[in-house]
């Protein structure tokens, strides 16, 4: 059953140096606060997994926490490149970054296979593309009934999955709604799951819609209001598209990036102080 922990405690207890971590979120509910706490704790040697790595993975890479990234689309959506990701991959700054690259279909199926206790995901994809030539984890299986050849990728089973959700209840059951991406699959596929939430309520259920992830598949629940900012939590606050646009200029230059991270992330003791500083600087 899930324990209610502070984010600091949850990250230090479960995100060990060198571990494989999936911080999922498909535009919506991206666990920014948790990523910042990993940076604050200086945890390194991580392998990060995410279908759509965006600013928080850019920040983790730029701060030197990451050895390897597995992904299927890495950019600042609608804005442009992830400059820290590109700098690490193209110029080994601040250090080399290994990648394992897939298409969305492969990763979505691989998470689902991981959640399902299967070692492999099969799907009808990748035909005619160059992906198999750069990724040895793309193989095939042949249908024993039709002879059709299907793509096969290993299941994803991260050491730790971290997601953000709207609500949890006192027992640690989690509720999320609207765009849910692969978050439930990431939680169910992981050895350990940490969930940050906007608020703790008496009880959650799905009678008004949304998805329930029950307490017994979660290790830690952390109440972190605004924990997805500048991503969003439907029903709480909208995506701050303006921040995503501003980020392009901050991240483009390594020194500007480092100074920003020092001022806003490292010099803040927690997410609340980080948000206060952003508000003062008119980022919110």
């Amino acid at each position, binding site marked *: 059953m899930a324990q209610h922990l502070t984010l600091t405690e949850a990250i230090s207890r479960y995100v060990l140096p060198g571990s494989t971590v999936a911080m999922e979120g498909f535009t919506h509910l991206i666990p920014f606060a948790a990523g910042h706490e990993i940076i604050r704790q200086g945890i390194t040697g991580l392998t990060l997994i995410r279908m759509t790595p965006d600013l928080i993975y850019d920040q983790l890479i730029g701060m030197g926490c990451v050895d390897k990234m597995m992904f299927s689309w890495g950019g600042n959506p609608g804005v442009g490149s992830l400059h820290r990701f590109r700098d690490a991959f193209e110029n080994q700054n601040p250090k080399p970054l290994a990648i394992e690259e897939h298409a969305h*279909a492969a990763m979505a199926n691989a998470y689902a296979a991981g959640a399902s206790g299967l070692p492999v995901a099969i799907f*009808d994809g990748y*035909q005619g593309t*160059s992906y198999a030539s*750069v990724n040895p984890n793309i193989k095939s299986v042949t249908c024993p009934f039709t002879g059709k050849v299907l793509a096969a990728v290993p299941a994803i089973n991260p050491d730790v999955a971290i997601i953000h959700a709207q609500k949890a209840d006192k027992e640690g059951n989690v509720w999320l709604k*609207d765009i849910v991406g692969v978050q439930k699959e990431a939680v169910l596929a992981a050895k350990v799951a940490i969930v940050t939430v906007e608020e703790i309520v008496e009880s959650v259920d799905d009678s008004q819609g949304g998805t329930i992830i029950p307490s017994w598949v979660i290790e830690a629940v952390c109440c972190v209001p605004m924990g997805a900012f500048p991503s969003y939590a439907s029903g709480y606050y909208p995506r701050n598209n303006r921040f995503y646009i501003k980020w392009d200029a901050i991240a483009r230059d390594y020194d500007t990036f480092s100074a920003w991270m020092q001022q806003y992330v490292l010099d803040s003791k927690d997410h609340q102080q980080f948000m206060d500083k952003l508000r003062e600087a008119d980022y919110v």
Partner: protein
Amino acid sequence: MSEASYSSSEMMTVAASRMLAEDDVCFVGIGLPSAAANMARLGHARNIKLIYESGTLDTKPQVLPLSIGDGELADTAKGVVSVPEMFRYWLQGGKIRTGFLGAAQIDRFANINTTVIGDYANPKVRLPGAGGAPEIASHCQRVLITLKHSNRAFVEKLDFITSVGFLDGGDSREKLGLPGKGPAMVITDLGILEPDPVSRELTLTSVHPGVSVEQVVAATGWPLKVADKVATTPAPTEQELAILRDLNARTQAAYN
């Protein structure tokens, strides 16, 4: 309908939007495909169903999303499904008629690259990567592609095939056993290209008003095949421009 003044980017969006029909079910990529698809929905194809890979089914955004998963998409959707379901039941399951993609590079057989320019391990430019494109390209019944015309985009040889068009041309796509029929049209800021029915090589079939065939050939990194009769794309109508500009204005206002 009188002629109006418009930009080449507006011409491209309008031309792309016209390729979508009233009864289409369209898997929409972010950026120009999203603008064109929503323009169609607000104009001549009010019943079109738009689907975004973030899981939104039949969504009707009032402003253009900046990302593929903006709240506006979920708030205005008939339903939202998980991403694994989207890729399994809807895309791979063959429930989408039209896939609408952008691209960084394209070759003569409409294969596209959104992964890397230069060597994979030591790239000149590292692009965002595949996203949903490879399976959109293989599973939708037809594919529309839109990108700006230039020698750097329309290249002799792709550095990386992210999503397959007609592979090496002829029946090489069919031999892959892909369920969809492949790219039906490439819409650029200069004109419209369609695959030759046999060789599958992209062929210039229409130029936008004020654009010459020579301009398009010069902006293409391979000896471009030109149709015997090249049409001139009808200029955007005032109504089309009004819809597009309203949409863009609402979007600008929402972001600032």
